C-alpha cells in the first residue's frame, strides 16, 4: 500500500486536485480514504496510473512491501473492518495523546479520542459502536485541532454514530428526526397554531415598529428565513430579534407557512437521508416562493448541516440562490450602512463565545470559518470587550454540541462545560455573546447555575436588535 495525498498526486501527474478527487469518486483510481486527508493506493494501481500518463513511477514500491508484511498480525481480526478498512492507517496516529489532553470529556466511560482512534485501528468496531461515548462527544473537533498528524477524529466519531443500529440511537434524537420528517418541524407544531402565533407576535411588535407585519409565503420576497422550532414553542419573544432587524433595514423577507424548520438533527445521528430531506424542503420553498436568497439556520449544527447538504446534493441551488450565514447578512447590512447601532446600551465587560460549528469545524470542512465577524459586530455594540483564552480556532466547546443538548447525558454535558465556564470566569466579563441556540442555552441555563458565573448571555442578533437606532426619518 502507498500512502498518498491528493495534492502530491495532482502535482505528480500535472492535473488539478479536483481531477484526482473525481477519479477516486468515480472509481477510476481505486484509493481508500484514510485519516489525515491521506489515501491508500495499491502499488499496482499506482503503476497503472503512471503507465496511462507515460510517466516513470516516482515512488518506491518498498513501502508497499513493508506494509504487506506488517499486515499479518491484523489478519487475526475480522476480515473487513467497516470503521478503518486498512490497518496501515494506524501508523498515521503517533499515539502522542494531544487529542486526549485537548478533549474535555477524556476519561468519561474510560475513553478518550486517542483510545477511540487506536480501537478503530485495531478493528474493535463493535465495542466502539456499542459504546455511548461517541454520543457524549460534542463533535467539537478540539481533538483534531490539536492533532499533529491531522487524523480526522471527528469524522471517525460520526462514522461510529452512523453505524449504530438505528434502534439504539439516543431516543430523543430519533424522535426529533421522525417528528420533523412527519410533521414538518421537530416539535410537531401544527400549521394553524404556528401562523396564529406569528400574527399575534407581529401585532405585539407593531406597537414598537409601526406598520410591522410578518410576511408569510410572500412570493418574490428576496430573503427566505428559517425558524428553530424551539423559539415558537418555548421562547416566542426571541423571534422578534431578527424581525426588528429586518424592519430597520427594510428587508424584503418571508417565512414559509410549511417546512420552515431550521433544525437538522440528521447531522447528529449520521442520518444523511433525513439531512437531505430537511434541506430539500428549504430548497423547494426557495423555488416555490421565488426567493433570491436563503438565510441559513442560526444554530451552529443546522448552519453547517444545511451548507454541507447544499454543497453535496443541491449544487444548482448554490448557483441560483445567494446563501447567507447570520454573519454574512449582518455584515452586509453594516457595510451598506443600513444598521445604526448604539454602543452605549450595553456597558460592562463583554466576551464572545466561538461556536465550534461556525468556527473550527466550518474552517476544517468548508475551508471558511467565521471568527472575526462576530467580534466586529459585538464590539460595535459593546466597546468594552475581552476575548477568552484560548479563542477562535482553539476555543473550547460549551459542552452541548453534537446533539448533547438533546441527549440524555446531562451530567456529562455539564462536566464537559467546566472548561468553558472557567474560560468565561477568567475574562471577568459580565456578558457573553453567542451565535448558536445550544451554546446559548447551555451557558445561560446550565453553566451559569452549576459554575456560578452570573453572566448575561445574548445571541449576536439579539444584541444587534437591542442596540438598534431606528432612523428618525
Amino acid at each position: 500500500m502507498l500512502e498518498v495525498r491528493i495534492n502530491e498526486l495532482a502535482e505528480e501527474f500535472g492535473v488539478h486536485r479536483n481531477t484526482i478527487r473525481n477519479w477516486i469518486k468515480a472509481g477510476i483510481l481505486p484509493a481508500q480514504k484514510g485519516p489525515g486527508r491521506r489515501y491508500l493506493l495499491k502499488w499496482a494501481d499506482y503503476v497503472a496510473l503512471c503507465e496511462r500518463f507515460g510517466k516513470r513511477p516516482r515512488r518506491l514500491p518498498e513501502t508497499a512491501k513493508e506494509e504487506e508484511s506488517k499486515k499479518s498480525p491484523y489478519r487475526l481480526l475480522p476480515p473487513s473492518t467497516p470503521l478503518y478498512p486498512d490497518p496501515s492507517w494506524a501508523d498515521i496516529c503517533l499515539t502522542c495523546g494531544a487529542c486526549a489532553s485537548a478533549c474535555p470529556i477524556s476519561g468519561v466511560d474510560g475513553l478518550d479520542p486517542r483510545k477511540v482512534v487506536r480501537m478503530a485501528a485495531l478493528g474493535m468496531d463493535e465495542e466502539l459502536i456499542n459504546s455511548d461515548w461517541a454520543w457524549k462527544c460534542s463533535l467539537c473537533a478540539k481533538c483534531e485541532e490539536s492533532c499533529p498528524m491531522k487524523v480526522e477524529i471527528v469524522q471517525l466519531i460520526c462514522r461510529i454514530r452512523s453505524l449504530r443500529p438505528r434502534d439504539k440511537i439516543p431516543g430523543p434524537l430519533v424522535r426529533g428526526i421522525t417528528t420533523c420528517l412527519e410533521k414538518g418541524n421537530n416539535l410537531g407544531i401544527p400549521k394553524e397554531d404556528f401562523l396564529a402565533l406569528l400574527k399575534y407576535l407581529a401585532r405585539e411588535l407593531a406597537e414598537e415598529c409601526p406598520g410591522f407585519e410578518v410576511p408569510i409565503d410572500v412570493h418574490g420576497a428576496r430573503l427566505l428565513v428559517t425558524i428553530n422550532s424551539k423559539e415558537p414553542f418555548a421562547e416566542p419573544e426571541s423571534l422578534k430579534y431578527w424581525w426588528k432587524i429586518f424592519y430597520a433595514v427594510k428587508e424584503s423577507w418571508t417565512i414559509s407557512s410549511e417546512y420552515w424548520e431550521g433544525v437538522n438533527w440528521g447531522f447528529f445521528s449520521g442520518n444523511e437521508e433525513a439531512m437531505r430531506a430537511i434541506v430539500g424542503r428549504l430548497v423547494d420553498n426557495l423555488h416555490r416562493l421565488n426567493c433570491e436568497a436563503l438565510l441559513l439556520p442560526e444554530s451552529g449544527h443546522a448552519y453547517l448541516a444545511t451548507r454541507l447538504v447544499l454543497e453535496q446534493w443541491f449544487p444548482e441551488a448554490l448557483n441560483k440562490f445567494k446563501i447567507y450565514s447570520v454573519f454574512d447578512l449582518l455584515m452586509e447590512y453594516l457595510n451598506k450602512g443600513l444598521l445604526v447601532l448604539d454602543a452605549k446600551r450595553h456597558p460592562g465587560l463583554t466576551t464572545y463565545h466561538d461556536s465550534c460549528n461556525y468556527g473550527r469545524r466550518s474552517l476544517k470542512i468548508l475551508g471558511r470559518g467565521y471568527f472575526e465577524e462576530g467580534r466586529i459586530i459585538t464590539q460595535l455594540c459593546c466597546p468594552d470587550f475581552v476575548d477568552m483564552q484560548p479563542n477562535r480556532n482553539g476555543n473550547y466547546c460549551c459542552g452541548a454540541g453534537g446533539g448533547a443538548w438533546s441527549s440524555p447525558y446531562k451530567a456529562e454535558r455539564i462536566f464537559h462545560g467546566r472548561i468553558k465556564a472557567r474560560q468565561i470566569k477568567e475574562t471577568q466579563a459580565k456578558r457573553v455573546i453567542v451565535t448558536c441556540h445550544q451554546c446559548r442555552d447551555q451557558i445561560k441555563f446550565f453553566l451559569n447555575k452549576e459554575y456560578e458565573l452570573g453572566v448575561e448571555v445574548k445571541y449576536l442578533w439579539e444584541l444587534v436588535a437591542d442596540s438598534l437606532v431606528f432612523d428618525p426619518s
Partner: protein
Amino acid sequence: MPTVEFKGKTFEVDEDGFLLGGLDAWCQEWVEYVKQLEGIEELTEEHWKVIKVLQDYYKKNGVAPMVRVLSKVTGFPLKKIYELFPSGPGKGACKMAGLPKPTGCV
C-alpha cells in the same frame, strides 16, 4: 428501558424519565411520583388545570402545545406556569401529564 416503582405501581420510563406508556399508563400515582421528583409541595387546582389542558391538546394533536397556547388556554402567564412547575412546561408539566418529552432544542 428503565422502570420506576412508586406506591406499588411500576412505570416504564424513557431515558429522560418521561412516562413511556402514554396517557393509558398515566394515573394518580404517576402524578404523585412526579410531584415528589419535581419538589412540588402541594398539588392545587391550578396544577390540574395545566395537566388537563396539556392532555387535551395532546389527544388532539399528538404533540405538546407551544407555551403561548398553554398560557392562553389556561389563562396563566408563563411566569405562573414556572411557579407551578419549577422545571418548566416542557420538562416538568409535560412529564407530570404523561406526555412524551418535547422533541426539539428545548
